């Protein structure tokens, strides 16, 4: 699994189409993500960022095309049954932090973090991993025993992201981490994500707001009408080059 750059490919998407019912949202999309890199996925509302993430997790309405996660094929052609194979993809090393948080409103913060560690190795190490998450999101420490249904939007986002970071993932997909948060809190959430040590894994962050990611991720890919549009590395920020706008 070496690409032309010589780095290991964590994600290799080839010819992916996906959508909901009669609607096709993703059109023959190809995407490579390499180990150790942070990728920003930028595009307007409704252009397929979330559907792309959901399709990688097997949660879109239907999908077709190849998805290699760490060299293992997790893509398939299916017309219904969203979520049926998601747990297998997750066990292969995917951590999806979905838009809208998808929390379990009656579980406590601590139980949420535990539930993020369902792979056997993560479950054994969940104690130290929780400590690590609390270092990234210090406000959660005091809330460990509180049901998540009582938390504020920003705290819920931290729980949702923390749950994703508990896993043994090789690929983290973060869907609009700043959505619906006050700008200051949104920025601190992004900063926390940037502080996560990736090691051999990779992270893709979808955002509408280019400014939040600019200069902080390794490259930024634009998304428009279900296709990837251009790419910019951090060395040459989007604002000056502008292919992804």
């Amino acid at each position: 699994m070496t690409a032309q750059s010589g780095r290991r490919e964590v994600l290799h998407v080839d010819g992916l189409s996906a959508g909901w019912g009669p609607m096709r949202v993703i059109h023959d999309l190809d995407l490579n993500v390499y180990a150790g890199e942070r990728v920003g996925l930028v595009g307007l509302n409704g252009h397929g960022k979330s559907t792309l993430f959901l399709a990688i997790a097997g949660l879109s309405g239907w999908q077709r095309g190849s998805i290699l996660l760490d060299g293992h094929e997790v893509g398939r052609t299916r017309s219904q049954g969203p979520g049926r194979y998601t747990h297998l993809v997750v066990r292969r090393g995917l951590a999806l932090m979905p838009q809208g948080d998808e929390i379990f409103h009656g579980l406590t913060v601590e139980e949420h973090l535990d539930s993020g560690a369902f792979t056997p190795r993560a479950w054994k190490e969940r104690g130290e991993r929780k400590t690590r998450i609390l270092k990234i999101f210090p406000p959660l420490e005091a809330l460990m025993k509180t049901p998540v249904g009582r938390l504020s939007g920003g705290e819920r986002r931290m729980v949702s992201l923390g749950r994703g970071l508990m896993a043994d993932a090789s690929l983290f997909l973060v869907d609009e981490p700043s959505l619906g948060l006050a700008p200051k809190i949104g920025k601190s959430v992004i900063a926390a994500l940037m502080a996560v040590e990736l090691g051999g894994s990779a992270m893709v962050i979808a955002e509408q707001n280019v400014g939040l990611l600019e200069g902080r991720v390794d490259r930024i890919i634009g998304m428009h009408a279900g296709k990837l549009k251009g790419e910019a590395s951090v060395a040459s920020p989007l604002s000056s080059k502008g292919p992804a706008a």
Partner: protein
Amino acid sequence: MNWSFVIANAITLACIYGTLAIGISLTWSSLGLINMAYGFIFALSGYGAWLASQYIGPNTPVVMAAGILTGVVGGVFVNALAFIPIHDKPNYQLRGLIATLAISLVGNQALLWSFGPRAKSLPQLFGTGSVNILGVVMTADKIGASLSAVVLLTLVLLWMRSSRRGLEIRAMMMNPHAASIVGIGVRQTSFSVMALTGGLAGLASVLLAQTYYVAPFSGITPMVKGLSIALMGGLGSVPGAVIGAVVLGTNEAFTSTLLGGQYVLITQFLLIILILLIRPRGIAGILDKAREA
């Protein structure tokens, strides 16, 4: 009117119906399945316990274990037949309802066919003595039934609070979509949910057979009561189901003493309609402090 008799009956019925209601509630909230075959599992485990008492020996652990195990097998069977093939297909909830109803009809007829219409009675599991607690005379069968229901339910709930599998089930109850995102397999978990709730039906069946009997259709009425308690308590809420069971157990004991047994279902449904008119989400709507979304 004999107060102590009414109270003793209310407690026993509350424990048994509460067990059933929690089973139904768990199935609904984690799998989205209204298990109409629950009455069949109930009757089946009664026969399992009866067979064990006939062929292995009429001692308490054997009969109870046989009832619970038959319930577990019944639950797994219903899951394999009515949940696994259709759970990700369109219109699943209605299809699941019909599929379990079909299993219930076929299963009850099969029981009638193989065991005959005559009711069987289980051996007295808890002896015949009686104790006077604060002026309330509790016979041994009632104490045994209430205690074993409370103890086993507590164990189940503790297991759900503390174990990893329990966390999986609770996560699936609250948000099945998010559960798959954290790597919980719906199919695997559905087997543990149905085995667990089937076991609860088996327990309730053995305990209720201490007062009543085992018959091919003996599961229908308890299932209707369990389902209505689960509805009243707020589907998916264990504390709601417990309170609902106490309310309906009391209602049943009072109605059958004051008006007569044939009026029990009438007063029961009037009570449920009243409660759901005032609290549409059931009793749990009052208890739940967390926001839904």
